[in-house]
């Protein structure tokens, strides 16, 4: 990095304004951040939902076993 | 009676939610056709602004046509249509619920995504609000009138093209008043008159189309 860190903007306000171009730059940063966070969070939530579905399937199988256990001669597919 | 309407509406929306992937197709079509216009004609904003009102309306019409075919076809195939015809609680309301659900699932999203097209086709700012209001009202008429075509052609195998043939002429007034609303606004005139006419067409369609659809479905069930 050549020389000491030279901040381009004197204050946070100037950094936010960016000489008039602030809204555009920060809008772009915001949308990019939202999309990237979504790309990380969505798979994790999907994984949790899928594992919950696996548990529900096991409960379903238990119900089926219970149904056939008490009336084995009953209508079974 | 309106409980039949609300229950049918809820049922159809639940069904639509289960096929979310398919719902995006008319929207994607809507945006893609918009991208083809400049490629075909010219990227200059001035040229595009001239075409934008009419183009957006034609594209909304084509996108609605695209989504009409499965409206009754699936019910016809799995036997649900017979049960629909036997609904004692006023079949008209059950059908109306189905048609409103179709509008909520295709017409409304088309309206909400229209600003994106306005940007792509460089529509002047004056035309944005009229475009939204016009589409909001107009897509209702598009769905209602389109449902009639779908009901008439439900029992045919390849009904896609025939459906378009039947319905396109009926869409002419909607297209004329729809693009007139936006055109007038861009030129600075009052755009309420065409909007009011468009609204009356939609209300007329809302009242009469379900009856025609019931008749058409009863017709197909007895062939």
């Amino acid at each position, binding site marked *: 990095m050549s020389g000491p860190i030279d901040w381009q903007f004197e204050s946070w306000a100037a950094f936010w304004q960016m000489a*008039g*171009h602030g809204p*555009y730059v920060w809008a772009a940063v915001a*949308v990019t951040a939202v999309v*990237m966070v*979504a790309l*990380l969070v969505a798979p994790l939530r999907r994984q949790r939902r899928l594992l919950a579905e696996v548990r529900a*399937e096991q409960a379903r199988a238990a119900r089926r076993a219970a149904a056939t256990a008490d009336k084995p001669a009953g209508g079974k597919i | 009676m309106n409980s039949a309407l609300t229950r049918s509406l809820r049922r159809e929306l639940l069904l639509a939610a289960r096929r979310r992937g398919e719902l995006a197709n008319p929207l994607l079509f809507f945006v893609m056709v918009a991208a083809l216009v400049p490629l075909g004609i010219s990227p200059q904003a001035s040229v595009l602004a001239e075409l934008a009102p009419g183009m957006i309306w034609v594209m909304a019409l084509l996108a609605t046509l695209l989504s009409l075919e499965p409206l009754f076809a699936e019910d016809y195939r799995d036997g649900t249509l017979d049960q629909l015809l036997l609904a004692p609680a006023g079949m008209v309301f059950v059908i109306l619920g189905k048609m409103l659900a179709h509008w909520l699932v295709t017409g409304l999203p088309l309206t909400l995504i229209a600003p994106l097209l306005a*940007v792509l086709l460089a529509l002047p700012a004056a035309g944005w609000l009229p475009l939204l209001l016009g589409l909001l009202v107009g897509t209702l008429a598009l769905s209602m009138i389109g449902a009639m075509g779908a009901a008439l052609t439900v029992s045919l195998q390849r009904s896609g093209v025939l459906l378009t043939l039947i319905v396109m002429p009926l869409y002419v007034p909607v297209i004329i008043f729809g693009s007139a609303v936006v055109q007038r606004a861009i030129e600075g005139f009052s755009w309420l008159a065409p909007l009011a006419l468009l609204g009356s067409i939609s209300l007329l369609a809302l009242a009469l189309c379900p009856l025609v659809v019931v008749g058409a479905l009863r017709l197909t069930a007895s062939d």
Partner: protein
Amino acid sequence: MAWQWFHQWGSPRWFYQRSGVWLPWLGGAAGLLLAIGLVWGLALAPADFKQGNSYRIIYLHVPASFLALAGYYLMAIAGAIGLVWKIKLAYTAMKCAATIGAALTFVALFTGAVWGKPTWGTYWVWDARITSMLVLLFLYFGVIALYQAFDRVDVANKAAALLALVGTVNVPIIYKSVDWWYTLHQPASLKLTGESTLHASMLQPLLVMVVGFYLFYAAALLLSMRAEVIARESGGGWVKALAAGQGGGQQL
């Protein structure tokens, strides 16, 4: 040995465990690089003499554009591997790459449009590069829509892989035809992402951001593939054990 390693990738369980090990490192590195690159690009790099500060969007737009295109080719290659060697994991990679690629293409388009406003006064300009990017987004949506249209997964895999391959052949043709179309209609004017020579102090943060984006892409892809693998192997014993395990505590 290499062949055996190549086939090891075939077993989803093995993949799930290996990716579990790499993921924290990958995610950490990506986060670090992105943070450094962003601060460097937004706060430290000098303003462009012509465009002022709005050029700083380049630190998001260019990496996203790179990944949009690279992601498409990666998706197509994964599809090809699936078709040729019948490796299910390749199809999984293809499906997940499609979604992430589409998202990053959207980011590229959005940042490009926002950048266009201060530069040219309107959000959307039919610039050659951006138009091609829009067509690329439609290609992505095409692959995703085709994949979702089929109920049976194996048919969906093959169909989507085929469409992706066809797409790769078309992408260069599309880009060239759009360039030709653009020069046909457009009077000479600044190309948005032309090779205007960037000063070194502006270029360095850009490189950091590009690497950061690639690492992020890899991390997001692995995450998405892990969820997809669980979805496809939900019948498997190891998934049931994982479900039981995850019923209580949280372990990756």
